[in-house]
C-alpha cells in the first residue's frame, strides 16, 4: 500500500562509545518523508544532521530504532542488501563532494552505474546527459581538482542521480558555495526532483533552503525539536 511515505523512522538512535565516553548523536528520532518532496534538516553543528543522513542512506547502522524505506525495513538488511540499496535506490551528495581524484569527471558520474552493472554505452550516455543537465558539459575529461567547488558539487549531484534513485540525500550541499552558486544548485536540485521524480533530504545550515523546503525538521543535540 502506497501511503505517500517513502521514508520513515521509528525511535531512531545512534550513540558512539561506551560508559562515560558515550556520546548520543541521535535520540528517538521519528520522521516521515513524503514521496517526491524536499525535506530540510537543519540545526547547529553537532546536532546529528550528518549522522541522520548516514543512517538514512544505509552507510551506518543505528544503535536503536528502525528505518523503513518504501515499506522495507532497512535496519535489518545485511551488507549486501545495503550496498544494493545505496547503488540503486539512494543517491548521496557528500559535504565535501567525495569525488575520486584518480578518475575523470565522466568516470566519477559513471561509477555508481558501473557497480550496478550497466553497459559502457549506457553509462556513458547517461553520464554525459546528466553532466549536460548540471552544466558541466565539455569538462568530462577533467579531474575533479581541475574544477571549482561549485562545479565539483554539480558533478557530485550528477553522480548521486546517475542510477535514477528514489531518494537523494544531500549533506550541506551549499556549505562550500557562494550565494549565487548555492541558488543555482538548489534550483538544479528542485529541477532534478521534478524531472527525476526523486525525494530529497537536505541537511543544511542554509536558511534559504530551509524556508523554501515544503517540510523541515530542526535537530538539536540529536533530537527533533520542531518539524
Amino acid at each position, binding site marked *: 500500500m502506497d501511503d505517500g511515505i517513502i521514508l520513515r523512522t521509528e525511535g531512531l538512535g545512534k550513540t558512539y562509545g561506551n560508559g562515560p565516553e558515550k556520546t548520543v548523536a541521535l535520540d528517538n528520532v521519528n520522521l516521515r518523508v513524503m514521496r517526491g518532496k524536499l525535506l530540510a534538516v537543519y540545526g547547529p553543528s553537532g546536532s546529528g544532521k550528518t549522522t541522520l543522513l*548516514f543512517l538514512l542512506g544505509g*552507510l551506518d547502522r543505528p544503535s536503536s530504532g528502525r528505518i523503513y524505506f518504501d515499506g522495507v525495513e532497512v535496519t535489518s538488511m545485511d551488507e549486501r542488501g545495503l*550496498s544494493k540499496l*545505496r*547503488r540503486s535506490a539512494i543517491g*548521496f551528495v557528500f559535504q565535501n563532494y*567525495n*569525488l575520486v581524484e584518480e578518475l575523470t569527471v565522466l568516470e566519477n558520474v559513471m*561509477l555508481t552505474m558501473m557497480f550496478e552493472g550497466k553497459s559502457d554505452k549506457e553509462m556513458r550516455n547517461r553520464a554525459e546527459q546528466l553532466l549536460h543537465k548540471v552544466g558541466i558539459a565539455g569538462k568530462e575529461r577533467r579531474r575533479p581538482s581541475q574544477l571549482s567547488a561549485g562545479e565539483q558539487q554539480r558533478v557530485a549531484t550528477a553522480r548521486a542521480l546517475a542510477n535514477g534513485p528514489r531518494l537523494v540525500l544531500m549533506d550541506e550541499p551549499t556549505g562550500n558555495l557562494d550565494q549565487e552558486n548555492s541558488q543555482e544548485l538548489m534550483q538544479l536540485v528542485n529541477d532534478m526532483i521534478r524531472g527525476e521524480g526523486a525525494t530529497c533530504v537536505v541537511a543544511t545550515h542554509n536558511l534559504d533552503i530551509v524556508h523554501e523546503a515544503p517540510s523541515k525538521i530542526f535537530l538539536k543535540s540529536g533530537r527533533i525539536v520542531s518539524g
Partner: protein
Amino acid sequence: MRTVLTVLGLAALILTYVGVQSLVSTLEINVTGSVSSLGGEIDVWSKGAVFPLLSRLPESYASQVKSISGVSLATPVALVQLTVDNNYALVAGVVPAQFPHLLNYTMTSGTMISSNQSGILAIGKALAATIGKGAGDSAQLNGQDYRISGVYETNTWMDYSLVIPHTVAQQLIGWVNQTSMIVVVTQDPRNVNTIIGQIRTLLPTVDAFRTSEAPSRISPIFASLEAIATDITIIVSLSAVLGIMNSNLNNLRERMRTFAIFKATGASYGQIIKLVFYESFLIGVLGTLLGLALSYVILSFVSIPLIETINVKIILVPSIFIYASILGISISMAAAIYPALKIAKVRPQEVFRFG
C-alpha cells in the same frame, strides 16, 4: 611509485626463479647428456667419481677388462675440456681403431680419425657449425693447429665435442698411461651384469656399471641442486608475497578514501575484492612479463662454468618460463588476498568522518 616498485619486485622474483631453474636444467642437460653419449654397454670409472671428467684410472685396466671372458671390446677413453677456436668443448681421446665399434656415427663429410697421428681431429656436427669449420679446414685445439679429418653425427651430446687419438689426448692432459674411463662392449648383452661383477672383483678400485645408468650416478647431485633451487624459490616467493602484501596494504591504505567512496556509492564487499584482485592481476601480468623479458635477455648472454674451465651457455627451457608465469601471477594474487579482504571491510562513514 609503489606500484612500479611492486612490478619491479615481481620481475626480480621471476628473474631469480628462471635463473636458478635454468642453471640447474642447463647443468643437468649438459652433464647427463655428456655421460650417456659415449657408447658401449659398460662404463668403468674410478671409484667414487660422479662424473667421467673427474675419473682417472690406469690405461692398463683396459687390457685386464678385455681379458674377462665375454668381453668383446674394452677401450680407454680420455676426456678433457679444451678450447677449439676459442670455444670450450669436450674432447674425447679414443683409440682410433676401436672407435667405430664403440659408437654409432655417420660422417657428414670427410673421414673419421684412423691413426694415432697427432694434429688431426674429427669434429661433431654441432661443434663444427658453432666454429664454422668443416672437413679439411684447420682448427686451433688448445692453441695448436689441427686439421679436421671429418665431421661426424651421432645425434647425441657427442655432436658438441670432438675426437682425437687417445695418445694425443694423454699428451695434452699430461697423463702417462692414465685414462678417464674404460668403455666395454660384451659379446652377449645378456651377460652384462655378470661381467660387471667380474670387473668389480678383478679391479676393486674401480666402479663398473651399465652405460645407461651413468646419468643416475650423477642424479643425486642434481637432486640436491633441485632441492636447493626449490628452497630458494620457496624462500624468495614467501619474501615476495610478504613484500608485495605489505606494499599492497600501504597502497590501499593511501587510497582508503577512494574505496570508501566506492562503497558509499554502492560497491559491494565482493565488488571491492574483485577490483583489488583485478588490479593485482594486472600488476602480476606486468611484473611477470617484465621478469620474463629480463630473464630471456640476461640469460641469453650468460655462460656458466660447468667443471673447471668448461663454460656452457644457459639453456632456456620453455617450461621454466611457463612455470615462472604461473608463479608470478599466483604470488601477485596471493599477496592481494589479505589487503583485499581488509579494504573491502572499510566503513565509509568512519573514513569520511575521521579520514
